């Protein structure tokens, strides 16, 4: 048959050729000239997963782990696989009803979709974990247990020292933009966890995981060729003595205040107690948020690390420093005596500053008896020293000494939020009173550690280390060494001894003599421990809260043994009432005994228990708690109140009334008279014309 259309095959070939050419061109644009598809493919199919290394462990000075890691388990659910699961048993184990079960499943679907696993119950308690694990076969594959490393505090102590971890927020991410944190990460927020975050954190690893279209992981990308392994955090070796810390916390329970103990030879902190404290394990488990909320709203501020973050007027503990300055400046000699006829009349008779015992005192006795008149006279001599042309310049000289002693500025302790306290400068008084309108008499209360001077407990402890060492100290710190070396140079500043002044040793000897007298026969006999030469100094600080006078703060600081000081220590009991010698001194005594003898003498144990059970929480806190709780009568609050405060009160109500502290008894009665009596007390308005300028001021006794 004739074929008339033979030529049409060419047309057909051309059509096919053109179509193939179009397809090839299109493929070129897709595969060769467009890079977005590769990015899209990787974005949807490859999950960049951060692998968290285990955080470093913190050991105490005897290499006991005081901050450890442990593993808890989250119960995870994949809602799409729920069919056929023994829901009833699971509900019984978890102690929830089916309505709650459904609610959680719906929440899981909303959060992560049906096909991905979400947390059904976070951080199972050990009992629940055991039960669930035993019966897990009944709930599989919809439910599984996922490991979750959390922090563990085996000694339940030093909560504020260790600090806690918390999920980073956007402001944290902004501040640490270069450090590779991501939303949802945990970072140390307070305490050592924060100061040594870089060391403890370790190095995070990255895993590339293949995902499928339903976002389920299906395996490692390229068999893990691009993954980087996580490097565990380095351990920290602390100078802390956890037993001493525990004893300190025990003694400070039911009290507000702080204890700081430092090894004067190394600057290593042995105990850093801030009371009230909390069980640090409360802030790691599943109910962290609830507990944190409770602690955060507690009027006694348990989350505040008072050892570094609270400032007090130092009271009479300040007198030791005043003595050092005066001796070194040469305005007095060790034989200089002042006679106290009942009050300080150096600024005229109008507003005398009282002294406790009338008589004639040399320096050593003045420290022992804590004579106000003596030190008012001494500081007056320092300020009115003819060597310096003006009050300005002499106060500036005094300031330099105080700064050298570590006051008025941050010491550089390795826990965050350290406060610098306050040492009044000429500029400060110029601002308050106007230039030329002030002289020593304006701020004479400073001479005995009241008024415009503020210190933190750690500064006081450091000052004791300085006196114990007779002229040098090392910056107090908690961490002695870091596993694998100090890569970031965090510990360098703690190595060098600081010798701020060239005060000769003899001067220290005299002051130490006075301080030894304090414990042996003076105001601080409560700290006495048989067989140990303790040097100490009491302080009783009058204070005001919102303009209302509160019970005195009791201070005691000291070091021991005098011959070869191994511990420098301070204790403050806020609003304990009475004197520094009443509560703070015995507490310090127990701690010194524990540290130096490693045990408490049998005969003193009962007294230790009494001391520990003593409730000195000021009524103000209870009042605030009652106000708060009457506003919100939530069940949980009632529970916490019951367990933490009310129970404590019940246990200690009787003991509080016991006049167990005999050395103070005599003075105590005297004090009562004094506080009512006219001659020994000066109204704050007498010292500062404008009362509102400062809350804490007035005289101190002891």
């Amino acid at each position, binding site marked *: *048959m004739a074929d*008339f*259309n*033979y030529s*049409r*095959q060419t*047309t*057909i*070939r051309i*059509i*096919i*050729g053109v*179509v*193939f050419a*179009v*397809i*090839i061109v*299109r*493929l*070129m644009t*897709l*595969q*060769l000239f*467009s890079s*977005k*598809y*590769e990015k*899209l*493919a*990787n974005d*949807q*199919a*490859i999950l960049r997963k951060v692998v968290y290394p285990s955080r470093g462990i913190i050991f105490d000075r005897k290499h006991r782990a005081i901050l450890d890691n442990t593993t808890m388990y989250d119960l995870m659910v994949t809602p799409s696989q729920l069919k056929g699961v023994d829901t009833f048993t699971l509900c019984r184990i978890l102690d929830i009803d089916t309505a709650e079960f459904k609610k959680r499943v719906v929440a899981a679907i909303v959060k992560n979709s049906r096909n991905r696993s979400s947390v059904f119950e976070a951080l199972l308690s050990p009992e629940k974990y055991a039960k669930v694990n035993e019966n897990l076969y009944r709930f599989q594959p919809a439910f599984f247990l996922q490991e979750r490393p959390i922090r563990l505090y085996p000694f339940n102590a030093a909560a504020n020292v260790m600090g806690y971890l918390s999920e980073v927020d956007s402001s944290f991410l902004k501040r640490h933009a270069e450090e590779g944190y991501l939303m949802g990460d945990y970072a140390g927020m307070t305490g050592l966890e924060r100061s040594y975050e870089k060391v403890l954190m370790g190095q995070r690893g990255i895993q590339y995981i*293949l*995902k*499928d*279209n339903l976002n389920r992981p*299906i*395996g490692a*990308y*390229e068999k893990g060729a691009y993954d980087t392994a996580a490097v565990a955090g380095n351990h920290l070796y602390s100078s802390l003595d956890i037993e001493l810390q525990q004893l300190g916390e025990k003694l400070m329970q039911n009290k507000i205040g702080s204890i700081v103990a430092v090894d004067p030879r190394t600057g290593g902190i042995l105990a850093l107690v801030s009371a009230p404290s909390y069980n640090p394990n409360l802030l790691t488990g599943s109910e962290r948020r609830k507990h944190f909320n409770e602690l955060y709203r507690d009027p006694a501020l348990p989350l505040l690390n008072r050892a570094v973050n609270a400032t007090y007027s130092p009271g009479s503990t300040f007198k030791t420093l005043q003595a050092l300055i005066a001796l070194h400046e040469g305005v007095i000699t060790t034989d200089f005596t002042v006679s106290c006829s009942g009050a300080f009349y150096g600024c005229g008779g109008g507003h005398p500053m009282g002294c406790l015992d009338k008589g004639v005192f040399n320096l050593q006795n003045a420290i022992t008896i804590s004579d106000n008149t003596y030190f008012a006279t001494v500081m007056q001599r320092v300020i009115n020293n003819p060597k310096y042309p003006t009050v300005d310049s002499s106060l500036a000289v005094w300031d330099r000494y105080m700064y050298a002693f570590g006051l008025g500025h941050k010491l550089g302790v390795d826990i965050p939020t350290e406060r610098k306290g306050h040492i009044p400068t000429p500029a400060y008084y110029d601002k308050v009173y106007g230039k030329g309108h002030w002289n020593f008499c304006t701020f004479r209360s400073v001479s005995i550690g009241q008024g415009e001077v503020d210190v933190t407990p750690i500064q006081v402890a450091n000052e004791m280390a300085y006196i114990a060492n007779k002229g040098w100290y090392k910056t107090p710190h908690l961490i002695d060494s870091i596993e694998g070396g100090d890569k970031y140079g965090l510990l360098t500043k703690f190595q060098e001894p600081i010798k701020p002044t060239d005060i000769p040793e003899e001067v220290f000897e005299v002051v130490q003599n006075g301080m030894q007298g304090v414990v042996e026969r003076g105001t601080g006999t409560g700290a006495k421990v048989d067989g140990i030469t303790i040097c100490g100094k009491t302080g009783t600080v009058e204070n005001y809260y919102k303009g209302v006078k509160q019970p005195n703060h009791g201070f005691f600081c000291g070091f021991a043994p005098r011959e070869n000081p191994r511990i420098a220590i301070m204790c403050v009991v806020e609003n304990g009432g009475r004197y520094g010698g009443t509560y703070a001194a015995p507490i310090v005594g127990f701690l010194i005994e524990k540290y130096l003898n490693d045990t408490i003498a049998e005969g003193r144990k009962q007294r230790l228990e009494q001391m520990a059970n003593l409730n000195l929480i000021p009524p103000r806190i209870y009042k605030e708690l009652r106000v708060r709780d009457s506003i919100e009568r939530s069940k949980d609050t009632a529970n916490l109140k019951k367990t933490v405060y009310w129970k404590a009160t019940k246990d200690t109500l009787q003991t509080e009334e016991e006049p167990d502290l005999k050395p103070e008894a005599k003075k105590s009665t005297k004090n009562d008279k004094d506080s009512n009596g006219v001659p020994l007390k000066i109204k704050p308005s007498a010292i500062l014309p404008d009362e509102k300028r400062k809350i804490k001021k007035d005289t101190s006794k002891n």
Partner: protein
Amino acid sequence: MQEKATIGKGVDKITLLLYYTLVMVGFIAIFSVEYRSGDSFTQSLLELKKNYSKQVLFIGVSSLVGVFILLIDSKFFTTIANLLYAGGILLMLLTFVIGKDISGSKSWIALGGGFNLQPAELCKVFTALALAKYLSRQETEFKTFRSHLIAFAITLGPAILSIAQKETGLALVYFSFFLVMYREGLPAWYLIVGFSIVVLFVTAILLSFPVYAIMIGVIAFIAIFYLWRLIRRNFVLLFFILLLGGSCVGFKYFVDNIVFDKVLKPYQSERVLSMFGKTYEPKSADRIALFEKEKATGKKKDYTYNVKQSKIAIGSGGFAGKGFLKGVTTQGDFVPEQHTDFIFTAIAESFGFWGSALLLGLYFFLIFRIIALAERQRSVFSRVYAYSVASILFFHVFINICMTIGLMPVIGITLPLLSYGGSSLVTFTILIFIMIRLDADRQMILR
């Protein structure tokens, strides 16, 4: 006539080689879609649980069918062509009664053992045979309008049935026979009109109504201007031009309001329009209501998901590809229907541009080889049949690949010899092997 000593005598080795190359590529592609590291290859192969192991079975069955076909006398096909066609139509009608629903299309007949047959696939072979039979009839004069109509009826009959079965893709393939008919003398203006309608359709989608109308008006004005001398002789031409212009404008209305809102399903409309970068906005009240409801209940599906994923898979392959079994899109099951209609994406992701181009080259070579075979036939029957095979292959490849690269809306159509599925593979095997058989007897005159 010589006696056939072996079945291999006269068989075109190049076609056979290309056939098996493509089948093997298909197996590798299906394997790469389904295999996950850790699977036991031999075990799943023996248990026939995986698609790639079933595909091995299909390849075996196909080879048997191929051998069987090569053993049949060529005359058998001419004799039985019409009967087969009738049987095929009957089978397709049967699906309306006993059809099995597979992914929304009731075009399958269950064969038992988990295997299903899609008559519409097989019908392509029968239609090719029937068309060859009709055109090779001595009394057929393929110049008359009547013969055109009969040829159209033969080819478009199964297409209409396919549309009724909701297998739009398969229906589209039947239009490939127009290429064959064109080769056999169908006037070119059929194709030109068809192409014009496609162009008009695309223009109607792309342009807004006023722009479209103005454009048509300008074209009509230019036509009148240039044809003025002819129009002066015959004013009917002017009316014809005006009528044509008017219907073109009406076509736009037809496309917007009838085609997208009535003829096509909502998801089809969305797929077609998304190809041109448009979003489907229904005009009819019931469609609007449906859309509002879907939006309100949040059940609105993303009908462009397939194409997006397909383009991601292909585009991410780059020039060299990610390597065998290393395509993350493939391994993560992101491309739906990847082992069947979107098998090309697996090749393109793993082997990149060079792999894709090589595959296209294989198809191109196969189609051109078949056209060359067609042109060396002495009998019209063999030539028409071979052209049918080339055209069907071409349409399948063209539509399938264009669909994966976003040049065509997503319609269910397989990539010949590569896509998973027994019906498709066996159909193309029969299609190609009959042609090989006919070509082996190319010196004979078959009618």
